[in-house]
């Protein structure tokens, strides 16, 4: 069995902090799953995501993504939605699509167009003239228009209104490929928990548990949201 993400004795320390931001003894994430990365603020979710994406280098230990060290090959296989706006606001939507098409071999213009037409956003508009929620939707559309092996979505619904969250989830569900894995980090658990296969609970940089969402419901008799509140009660 090969895994999409494998970490061994992985640590990341920042100079400003005495304790490691991330300390994972062993973690394997297979293909074809939707995995929630759940933990309170500052627990190491984004640090982990950045290590997977090769945006940070580990202090010690190993991380393997799609069979190799994070690098150009893994970046071509990962579609990453960061937790903030990362695209130049001066570009028009149609130019962003061209930009993505040129950059990523697995980008489907047809998919992007059909998702955009459902959103009723003018392709000639410049990104920065749109509302924050609309900008986030554009980013999501671009992310989900790739046929990637691994989608990493960092807080994909935090900036959109509750009515649009359903649209976002539908977009995610309708567009990822069957054998791809989605890693979703969020603290809006109740909104997203019905689409998760597996859940990773992370606290103070360490993995508390990694199991299927249904087995938590069966064992605890409560929702992931309620369980999360119990585990991470202040």
């Amino acid at each position: 069995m090969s895994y999409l993400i494998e970490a061994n004795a992985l640590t990341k320390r920042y100079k400003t902090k005495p304790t490691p931001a991330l300390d994972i003894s062993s973690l394997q994430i297979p293909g074809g799953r939707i995995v929630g990365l759940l933990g309170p603020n500052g627990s190491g979710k984004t640090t982990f995501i950045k290590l997977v994406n090769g945006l940070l280098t580990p202090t010690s230990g190993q991380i393997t993504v799609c069979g190799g060290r994070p690098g150009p090959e893994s970046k071509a296989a990962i579609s990453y939605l960061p937790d903030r706006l990362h695209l130049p606001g001066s570009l028009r939507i149609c130019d962003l699509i061209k930009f993505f098409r040129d950059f990523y071999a697995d980008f489907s213009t047809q998919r992007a167009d059909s998702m955009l037409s459902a959103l009723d956003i003018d392709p000639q508009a410049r990104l920065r003239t749109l509302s924050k929620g609309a900008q986030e939707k554009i980013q999501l559309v671009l992310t989900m228009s790739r046929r990637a092996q691994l989608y990493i979505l960092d807080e994909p619904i935090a900036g959109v209104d509750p009515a649009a969250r359903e649209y976002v989830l539908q977009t995610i569900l309708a567009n990822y490929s069957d054998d791809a894995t989605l890693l979703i980090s969020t603290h809006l658990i109740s909104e997203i928990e019905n689409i998760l296969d597996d859940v990773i609970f992370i606290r103070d940089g360490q993995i508390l548990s990694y199991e299927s969402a249904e087995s938590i419901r069966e064992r605890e008799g409560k929702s992931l949201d309620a369980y999360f509140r119990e585990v991470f009660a202040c």
Partner: protein
Amino acid sequence: MSWKLDSGRPIYMQLLEEIQMRIASGRYPSGDRLPSVRELACEAGVNPNTMQKAFTELEKKGLIETRRTAGRFVTSDAALIRRIRSDLALEEYRHFSEKMKLLGYGEAQIHSFLCAEHKEDIT
């Protein structure tokens, strides 16, 4: 109709119950082709793997069958669907009568309640 899911119970079980209800009520008619896993998963806002698990359970029960390349179909075994329907009806009745008994009504009163036209008159 939308799917009402309670996140506190295993999702696949609730999907299974809902599809079973749709088959028993005739919304998914006997012998008809079912929507794809992906379609139904999107409609319900759940993971396709979870919907697949519900389908697998329904297949075990014989309520749906997979025909290679053609998709999934509701069983054409009308007797089976009738049996499932009456099981579901019995379950609903039990829930109802349990609640009525908790409220202090006896079997006879429950019966007359069901028959009465003006239910507000039942004491």
